[in-house]
């Protein structure tokens, strides 16, 4: 039974449906003509071969009066720009610009510029929206310029120049900040950078002055041409290239240097290796993945791993070390994971509607949920059970040195019941079957292999 992809409906020429796990793109007459122009160009074959554009195969598929159909390979996990780190959005921006330049060289254009058209596969960005390509009509401007600034450039500027994370903004407003909003945010010397004056201040001013005017015809008659787009694209590329962000050391970047982490890492790795050896999971979800050590271990044993963490610094570092690795990176706060949102509340599904793990790793996690985020232990375990997968869990008892630090300013009655080992085991037994367990050297931590009851 085919069902429409809830995020693919805006372009009438091309829309994606999912049919028994197959990803199928339906084209109308215009979409088919655009595909024929694209597929006839060596540009497409080269970009697919280099991994920059997803592969597409024309198929004989009849559905709802479509003029043509393509099939794409299914990606391990769809992620959204508000779940990406700075380097991921930057790489996606550079790919967008690079593809536009190469497309224009082949007499084609990309009719929009949104990071939702880009996904990560094997630690690198890949452009997935074949329907965005069309023949370039002489005299036409680049219609995606404003969208590029709002969804790629301005978010990167926010992080690089104003030390503001872009993800909360993009999660709240998927269209991204406007030029007028950026003009308000960028102060001091950032306000006077040439790039700010052009892409932010001048764009904001011209948008205000010209709202609703029809200018495309005028530009064409005045002599607009593809070389002007190319000049703009090349400047944007050097601007994006120059944007940099170095996470401060206050986050979790030095996590592995902490004593309990180094001491237990070997034992936790061996325990996980034995769990993976028994279960042979295809997809492993690492909650609170930090430097990705355990997620990478799962990949080394043949799984696709999904590394989730709330710290952009550690995930950005992990991303930069994961080229060619079967690893998806998701930046989200587990106490407030990505919700379903967009049109009809379903256009961009929530994180846990997209991830279907066979094994979940919850190492070094639950004490942060219980003691830092004040989530009742029972609720933590019920949530882990709702993921409906096997679980490698590290229990951290109240006397643990880390728990002592986390509760230094909390009084006993301010903590939830159910956190002692005996109480925790009782809840665990209700929800899971314990397949294996092992105490760690500290005496305050226990590893469990669990399967849902």
């Amino acid at each position, binding site marked *: 039974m085919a069902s429409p992809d809830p995020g693919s409906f*805006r*372009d*009438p020429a091309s829309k994606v449906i999912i049919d028994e796990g197959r990803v199928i793109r339906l084209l109308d007459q215009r979409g088919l003509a655009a595909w024929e122009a694209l597929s006839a160009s060596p540009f497409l074959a080269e970009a697919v071969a280099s991994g920059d554009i997803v592969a597409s195969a024309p198929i004989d598929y009849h559905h709802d009066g479509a003029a043509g159909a393509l099939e794409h390979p299914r990606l391990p996990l769809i992620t959204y720009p508000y779940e990406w780190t700075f380097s991921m959005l930057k790489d996606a921006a550079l790919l967008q610009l690079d593809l536009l330049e190469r497309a224009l060289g082949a007499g084609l254009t990309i*009719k*929009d510029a949104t990071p939702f058209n880009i996904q990560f596969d094997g630690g690198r960005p890949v452009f997935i929206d074949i329907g965005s390509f*069309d023949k370039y*009509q002489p005299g*036409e*401007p*680049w*219609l*995606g*310029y*404003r*969208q590029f*600034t709002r969804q790629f450039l301005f978010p990167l500027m926010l992080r690089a120049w104003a030390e503001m994370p872009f993800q909360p903004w993009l999660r709240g407003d998927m269209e991204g900040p406007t*030029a007028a909003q950026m003009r308000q945010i960028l102060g001091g010397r950032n306000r006077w950078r040439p790039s700010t004056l*052009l*892409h932010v201040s*001048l*764009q904001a*001013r*011209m*948008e*205000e*002055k*010209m*709202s*609703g*005017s*029809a*200018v*495309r*015809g*005028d*530009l*064409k*008659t*005045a*002599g*607009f041409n593809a*070389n*002007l*787009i190319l*000049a*703009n694209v090349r*400047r944007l590329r050097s601007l994006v290239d120059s944007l940099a962000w170095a996470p401060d050391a206050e986050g979790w970047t030095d996590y592995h240097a902490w004593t309990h982490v180094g001491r237990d890492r070997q034992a936790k790795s061996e325990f996980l290796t034995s769990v993976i050896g028994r279960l042979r999971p295809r997809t492993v979800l690492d909650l609170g993945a930090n430097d990705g050590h355990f997620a990478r271990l799962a990949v080394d044993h043949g799984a696709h791993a999904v590394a989730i963490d709330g710290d952009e610094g550690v995930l950005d570092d992990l991303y930069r070390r994961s080229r060619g690795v079967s690893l998806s990176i998701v930046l989200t706060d587990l106490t407030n994971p990505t919700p379903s949102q967009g049109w009809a509340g379903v256009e961009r599904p929530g994180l846990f509607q997209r991830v279907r793990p066979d094994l979940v790793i919850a190492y070094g996690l639950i004490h942060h949920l219980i003691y830092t985020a004040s989530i009742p232990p029972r609720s933590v375990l019920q949530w882990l059970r709702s993921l409906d997968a096997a679980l490698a869990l590290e229990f951290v008892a109240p006397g643990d040195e880390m728990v002592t630090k986390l509760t230094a300013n909390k009084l006993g009655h301010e903590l939830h019941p159910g956190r002692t080992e005996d109480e925790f085991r009782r809840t665990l037994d209700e929800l899971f079957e314990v397949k294996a367990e092992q105490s760690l050297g500290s005496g305050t931590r226990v590893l469990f292999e669990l399967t849902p009851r």
Partner: protein
Amino acid sequence: MLFGYLDAGSGSLLLQAILGGAAGIAVAAKAWRARLRGKSLVKDAIAESEAGATSDQASTEP
């Protein structure tokens, strides 16, 4: 209209010409001057071509 599903923003479209460098600034100025005169270059061009066609016809008449 091509690609009509995305609102590209009028000011952002004209700005692109400026961002295209010296040649683009000339294009933007030409398009902008037409706007200041309260005219559309497209309408002018249509009017000119129609006027040309009329005068051609006039000159071929005996």
